[in-house]
């Protein structure tokens, strides 16, 4: 078994680490305090990210992405998310669903996302449907060659700053399946508005908001993929989305452990560094074990995807990685905060911020319960996946 990271990826990972240290970490206090970045800082981060090829890392090179395989994307994501989400999320990305763009849509939507010139948002979740995504109620009706959308989305990341939304709506309510269509809806479209911005627990600077559709008329050329097949194009990216969520948990775990070790060595109580106490050592040992296990699961799921293993198996492995890594991050953040004592409860520490940020990882991209459902379904059908 060979776990060696290929040389060029190892080298690029070092570059990303330096980028994070120099370009992202210095702005953490600002993003935490102001729930966003000064425009010129945001622009500069985007520009440098594009120069290095950190943007749209999973997108093919023909569209201007880095064309990294899944393992490469995992390694880069892990490093990037050593920075708080509000900064890491500034690096331009493009969702794989946009590869379904036709030629005209490519120019208008896909390419500007790859270069960071346009911000997108992914609008699926609604007040009445989250985990059960197929149960969405937003409707789009065909009228005079256009589509008229009515409904409400919530918890949509980047909704308030997005230039366009990828919106899922029911177009064929009478069908058993193939009921849902994906639309590209531009900001400023009549009948399309941003609702309230949510006040959230963590990830300052990475905001969520509602989107409201009130007789919003969208031309036929803004349908993404085939009408009725919105979920087919969305599901293509689901496994890799879960692996990337797992990768997002590795960066904070690594940084928390570094900070925990350093703190334990220098904090003296009862005349000795607290690192001398076995109670503290055991917490650190458990953290290291959690990180190591999460890494192996995530890398191996990425590896399985890159090797072209059967989609169902990759899906199960991706769910295992996402489930374990997100829960491990919760445990690590909790222990390291404990090692920091009261200091870890103070907002100026990374630990406090990471603790709050960690909580979302068990909820989005499929909750822990949904991951267990996917894993169990696989297990019951096919037995243990090798």
């Amino acid at each position, binding site marked *: 078994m060979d776990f060696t990271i290929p040389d060029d990826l190892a080298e690029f990972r070092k570059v990303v680490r330096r980028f994070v240290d120099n370009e992202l970490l210095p702005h953490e206090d600002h993003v935490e305090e102001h729930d966003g970045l000064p425009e010129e800082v945001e622009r500069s981060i985007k520009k440098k990210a594009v120069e290095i*090829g950190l943007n749209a890392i999973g997108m093919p090179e023909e569209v201007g992405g880095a064309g990294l395989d899944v393992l490469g994307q995992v390694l880069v994501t892990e490093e990037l998310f050593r920075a708080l989400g509000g900064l890491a999320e500034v690096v331009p990305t493009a969702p794989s669903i946009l590869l379904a763009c036709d030629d005209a849509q490519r120019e208008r939507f896909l390419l500007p996302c790859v270069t960071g010139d346009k911000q997108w948002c992914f609008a699926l979740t609604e007040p009445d449907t989250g985990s059960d995504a197929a149960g969405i109620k937003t409707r789009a009706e065909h009228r005079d060659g256009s589509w008229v959308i009515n409904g409400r989305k919530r918890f949509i990341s980047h909704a308030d700053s997005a230039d366009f939304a990828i919106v899922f709506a029911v177009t064929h309510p009478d069908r058993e399946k193939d009921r849902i269509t994906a639309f590209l809806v531009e900001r400023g479209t009549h009948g399309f508005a941003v609702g309230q911005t949510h006040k959230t627990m963590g990830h300052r600077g990475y905001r969520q908001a509602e989107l409201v559709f009130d007789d919003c008329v969208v031309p036929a050329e803004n349908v993404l993929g085939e009408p009725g097949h919105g979920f087919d194009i969305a599901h293509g990216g689901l496994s890799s989305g879960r692996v990337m969520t797992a990768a997002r948990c590795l960066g904070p775990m690594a940084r928390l452990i570094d900070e925990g070790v350093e703190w334990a060595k220098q904090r003296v109580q009862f005349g000795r560094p607290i690192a001398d106490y076995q109670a503290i050592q055991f917490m650190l040992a458990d953290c290291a074990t959690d990180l190591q296990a999460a890494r192996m699961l995530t890398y191996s799921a990425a590896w399985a995807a890159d090797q072209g293993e059967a989609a169902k198996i990759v899906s199960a492995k991706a769910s295992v990685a996402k489930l374990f890594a997100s829960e491990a991050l919760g445990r690590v953040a909790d222990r390291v905060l404990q090692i920091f004592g009261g200091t870890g409860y103070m907002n100026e520490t990374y630990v406090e911020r990471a603790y709050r940020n960690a909580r979302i990882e068990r909820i989005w991209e499929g909750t822990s319960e949904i991951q267990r459902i996917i894993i169990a379904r696989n297990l019951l059908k096919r037995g243990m996946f090798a």
Partner: protein
Amino acid sequence: MNIVVCVKQVPDTATERKLRSDDKTLDRDAADGVINELDEYAVEEALKLKEAHGGEAAVTVLTMGPAKATETIRKALAMGADKAVHLTDDALHGSDALSTSYAMAQALGRIGFDLVVLGSESTDARTGVLAAMLAERLGVAQLTQAKKVEVSGTSIAVERVTEYGYDKVEATLPAVVSVVEKINEPRYPSFKGIMAAKKKPVETLSVADAGIAADQVGLAGAWSEVAEFAAAPPRGAGTIVKGDGDGGTKTADFLVTKKFI
């Protein structure tokens, strides 16, 4: 325009660096080798000059160092340099600044150049003399400590950092330039750059290939040698001066005993 940028591999300043007990030279195997920080600025400047030049211009990396210095060469190539020359030979081990400049001047003679760009100082030996020595040996103009470089046609103008501000220095190519940190912001290598670097040509030169007289380099040819070395004494606990209105006097007295004032 033919630009050669001199890039040195140095031990990572973040790790513990030490000298070898046998021949008192730097233990280059003990620490991770990294690109000398200022040399990243030199590479960046060379690339910028190439980009500004528009026409035919090439940037060649020149490194003198052991086999593992190839990692550093790749780094410079990943930033965008076109090709590299690696001057490597056991006979070069232990060279002092004078013989290093001789060996590198010989290599530069082989490569050919309009402009040689260096960092103004390395982080390991820190003599800061190489640019001047090279210019002297090559018989070309030296423009050191540059915080700005402009080339137009065959003339070159730099702003040279001084204690009081800067001097404007002009010369005619060919020339040797050394740069300071203020000059630019080195680019990050891109993933594509890292991949491309693997395919760029790296020519290896031995002492014989470069026409270097083996007895004038290495430990044997060195004019200076490290006679003795000792580890810096560990930092003591420090002295705490308790002030009852006389803290200033006590502090001053302490500094006098230590010969600071």
